[in-house]
């Protein structure tokens, strides 16, 4: 059941492939990057671009004799139809052979049928809902999924002797993922989930939730909120309502994301999270990565977005280096790839095309310069996307 539109598109793409014969001759391969570069989420696009530029600066502009050219397109916020038409424009007008970027799940899902039809390998730098990679054989993902980090958190918490939790998540897709992932894993281990609170997306004042959690007196609170103002207010509220003093531990995932960590200030100290990347990761490769990032884009903070884009560029370079514009075989190159990333050793799962990586348990602390960092103190090695195993 192909729509006439997609047929036309397919023909157009085939045509553009023929026309791009000249492009093959001078060995330029274009990669379209779809990300927000304006509006409230503009920082994502900037972080992606910075990450890619660090990779290019370290590895040169060519991969296996092909010059790689990145074309950036601004998708704004979650905007499926906009993302789809940008992808179409990149494929047909700009003649890109590969796509990358994608911050939001709806945008990634909207692009899936297009890249299937036009056979465009697409590396997802962020969009973290487990099921996305199942919607097209052309998706490869270098970010993480909430299942991937929430289950190890549950395991670690149980190992620490935590037996009862209250789960408090923002009521939207990723929040629900985090709640189910953490809750089912924790209960399977024998722990008790006293309450699962779904907080409205438009919450400003978290005090009532904190009071409710405190009344139930759990060993720990597992939270998931979108980064930015909600996390800021939530963490403040957690401290001000005396939950740490009542012995209720904070367990999270990306709440202590580096871009907003300094803003949280002392309130963040001691927060425990499970995540795949910390800018503080102790490896030479990560130090080289953060140093180059600071050199190229002063003030840019290394976080999940920049490392997702950096590794995404690595996968793109590997694919382009191996097959150039013969992109139909490119995804097979990515399957099973293993390499050392600034976040640690990683590989692409041959079946799911999602990144397998270490998950780190971290604690917020001040480093020797007085800067707040996520200090990794425990490693759970080689975690696949557990969501896809369900």
């Amino acid at each position, binding site marked *: 059941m192909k729509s006439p539109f997609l047929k036309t598109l397919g023909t157009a793409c085939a045509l553009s492939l023929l026309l791009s014969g000249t492009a093959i001759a001078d060995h330029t391969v274009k990669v379209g990057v779809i990300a927000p570069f304006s509006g409230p989420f503009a920082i994502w696009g900037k972080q992606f671009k910075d990450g890619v530029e660090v990779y290019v600066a370290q590895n040169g502009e060519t991969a296996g004799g092909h010059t790689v050219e990145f074309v950036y397109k601004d998708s704004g916020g979650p905007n499926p139809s906009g993302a789809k038409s940008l992808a179409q424009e990149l494929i047909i007008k700009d003649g890109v052979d590969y796509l990358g970027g994608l911050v939001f799940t709806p945008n990634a899902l909207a692009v899936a049928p297009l890249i299937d039809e036009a056979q465009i390998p697409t590396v997802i730098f962020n969009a973290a809902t487990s099921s996305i990679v199942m919607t097209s054989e052309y998706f490869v993902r270098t970010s993480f999924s909430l299942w991937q980090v929430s289950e190890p958190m549950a395991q670690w918490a149980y190992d620490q002797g935590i037996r009862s939790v209250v789960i408090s998540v923002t009521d939207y897709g990723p929040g629900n993922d985090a709640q189910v992932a953490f809750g089912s894993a924790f209960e399977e281990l024998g722990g008790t989930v006293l309450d699962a*609170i*779904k*907080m409205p997306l438009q919450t400003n*004042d978290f005090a*009532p939730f904190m009071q409710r959690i405190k009344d139930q007196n759990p060993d720990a609170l597992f939270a998931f909120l979108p980064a*930015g103002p909600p996390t800021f*207010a939530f963490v403040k509220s957690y401290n*001000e309502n005396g939950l740490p003093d009542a012995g209720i531990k904070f367990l999270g995932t990306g709440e202590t994301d580096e*871009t907003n960590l300094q803003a949280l200030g*002392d309130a963040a100290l001691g927060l425990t999270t499970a995540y795949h990347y910390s800018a503080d990761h102790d490896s030479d490769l990560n130090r080289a990565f953060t140093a180059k990032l600071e050199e190229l884009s002063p003030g840019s903070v290394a976080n999940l977005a920049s490392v997702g884009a950096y590794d995404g560029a690595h996968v793109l370079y590997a694919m382009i280096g191996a097959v150039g514009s013969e992109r139909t075989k490119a995804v097979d190159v990515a399957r099973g790839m293993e390499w050392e990333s600034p976040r640690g050793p990683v590989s692409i799962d041959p079946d799911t095309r999602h990144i397998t990586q270490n998950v780190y348990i971290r604690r917020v602390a001040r480093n020797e310069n007085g800067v707040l960092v996520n200090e990794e103190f425990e490693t759970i090695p080689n975690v696949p996307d557990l969501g896809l195993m369900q």
Partner: protein
Amino acid sequence: MSVLSGILIDGFSYGMILFMIAVGLSVTMGLMRVINLAHGGFALLGGAFAHWLTSIASLNYALSVILSVLAVMLIAIAMERALYKKIYQFSELQQVLATIGIAFLMIASVNLFLGSTLLPIRAPAFFSTSIDLGFRSLPAHRLVVIIAGLVIAGGLYILLDRTRFGIQLRAAVDNRDMAASLGINTVKIYALTFSLGAGLAAFGGILGAELLPIEAYYPLRYMVLFLVVVAVGGMGSIAGSFFAAISLGIIDTAARYIVPDFGTVFFFIAMMIVLTLRPHGLLGRI
């Protein structure tokens, strides 16, 4: 019992923060009849100045708050003279478009100079301590906000109802030409009142920042919230805004405590009921 008192206290303090930020809008939109969607922008500017003064220039908190509010009031006077004096004459839709444009300019300016991440205002350590009320603890900054809100509410009531300036303002708003012909300097009155509204926005933005953190998209993120408080309270009524903010704060808090899964729906149901029964708001002037 402790649940009920917890809801009342949290709701009251949340409502007070809403009041602090929305009262400036009640002055400009309610009294001066200019639909100022850039209101949150003045709160943003105040917060951005306070962020800059406390974090980068490492100034004392109280001094930073005063300087930030004054800076915003000066900017507001300049903008009133340059832009708003023309906007007063516009039709309602044009006012909406013009002021939302101004809000976008403010967002873009803050974004350009300070970026789009959170802009924390370094508050004194006292703010984050808990004060024990016997049956529960309350963060100290909420107590500060409650006291500041009561002072502002009382101060505005005296200013608008009991002073010469208030009388002149009400005269100028009711019939500008007549007031001018009686020798009232309406140009000055308008500029000062507008600046007062902007200054209140900045003050509310800074004090409320612990709950509604300052970042470049602040004006759009919370615009609906301010408009609801002013609409429910009744245009131009300081007391109305006060009661609206407190009751909406309590309703919202109670709903989130008791039935968190229903989200903010009760907040808007309350708004719809009030506006159906009293289209001009709780204490609105017809």
